[in-house]
């Protein structure tokens, strides 16, 4: 899967859960910058990503995520 594809797919997941698109898909984007992205939505977003990409994360990997760049990296690593 191309990086653009991953980004687009992630974007759609975020929009479907957060119910808005007031965010820019840049690498530095972090949960704090996005309205409604709290501990609860975070978990829902993570599980949705797992389902849609058919991958399984480890808690350690989730804990280390600092921003969108990390997430994209992690997803591309997992689907390889």
């Amino acid at each position, binding site marked *: 899967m191309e990086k653009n594809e991953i980004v687009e797919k992630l974007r759609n997941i975020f929009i479907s859960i957060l119910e808005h698109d007031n965010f820019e898909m840049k690498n530095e984007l972090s949960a704090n910058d996005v309205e*409604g992205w709290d501990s609860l939505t975070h978990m829902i977003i993570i599980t949705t990503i797992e389902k849609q990409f058919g991958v399984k994360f480890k808690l350690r990997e989730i804990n280390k995520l600092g921003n969108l760049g990390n997430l994209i990296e992690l997803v591309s690593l997992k689907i390889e």
Partner: protein
Amino acid sequence: MIFNSLEFSIFFLVFFLLYWFIFNSNVKIQNLLLLISSYFFYAWWDWRFLFLIVGSSVLNYILGILIERTSNLKYRRMLVYTGLLQGIGGLAYFKYFNFFITSFNEVFQSLDINGNLQTLNIIIPLGISFFTFRTISYVLDIDSGKIKATRDWIVFFNYISFFPTLISGPIDKAKSFIPQLKKQRVFNYDQAIDGMRQILWGLFKKIVIADNCAAITNPIFNNYQELPGSSLLLGAFIYTIQIYADFSGYSDMAIGFSRLIGFNVTKNFDYPFFAQNIADFWRKWHISLTAWMTEYVFTPFSFLFRDLGKIGLILAILINFTIIGIWHGANWTYVLFGFIHGLYFIPLVLSGKLNKKKIIAKDTLFPSYRETLNVLGTFTLVMLTMVLFRANTIGHAFYYFNGLFSKSLFSVPDIPSAKFMTLITFLFIVLMFIIEWIGRKQEHAIANISLKWNTPMRWVFYYALILSVFWFGGQEQQFIYLQF
């Protein structure tokens, strides 16, 4: 040495002068003075407390460095577990040991087994629940790569024992606090003035509101068998306000004192009584504790149960809140308090409204009809659990509710406290809520007063607060959260 005592005033004044005028040349000296003062402050309660805090600081400082250094996964795990074991073990021993013993004995008795285990005479080190949460988060954050282990032991020891927040929080994360300790603090006039403003507001809430509320609630909770349901309702209502004024007042003072010496401590309350549902309430109540719990308890459990869907979420919430309950103390009343709050979340989870944040009266002066109903409903749910919080045993709470929900609920309440002060207290409570409503979008309720009011008005207001503290201050009560 509580904040609103003469001893603390003298201690803080001496510290303040030394800190800014004598030991201000570099960060090392500032930190050394801060550490010695924190230990002095702590030892003032009981010097024996120092053993535990110094011991756990030494251990976790070393663990932090070792965890970061090693690449051996097994060894690393062992180090993390050592830290957890020390933290949780310390809590279990000092706070919960006797509770386990008496609970076991009750089980033995009910099974007719002859086994009477002896309880121990343990003194609970003050603030243990607060500083232990700091050490645990430090070790876990290094393990997960969120922070680097600090090599400066004075910085780390200060993080664990920082006196303004040592005994009752807020519980700061290493990530936000340790960088502040590493930088030299420079006196900032505006920050200091705002700190004093926040201390004043905290003092008002503690001494005028909480201590006067205690004069109303103590006789009601002590004589609940003889009072009508309406009095018990009043008792529960006032106690809910009391605990808020007590703990948020304490937190405002802790944050204010920190600001006076150049630190930004995390916010602990965000006007929780204007919350519109229980999830919203817990985002605004004792924020530093719930944030901690979310990160280290809720997140791992909800991750573990993530394939179970909503059931998994509910399970994680129930575990999370039951632990929040137990964190307060070794009593089944707290366990039930937490568990019920967990149950309160279930309708929100099922209806999918859990993460819908609603800002009350966003651009208007008054809340809408709907918002008002939500606020009152949320307050009532919280109020009912506060009876458990206040009661000594579950039985006590049960009989309290039994008396509350009786025909006498509709009678004229019989108030055992002095009539005049009760009335004054009611007026002050209304005043507090008006001021907090106006200031609800700010860091603390009177933060922006300098922008809105001119100087004479402001001073009239400050003096009114100070005078009310002296004239109408209730009889000195221990801070409720000091026991936790």
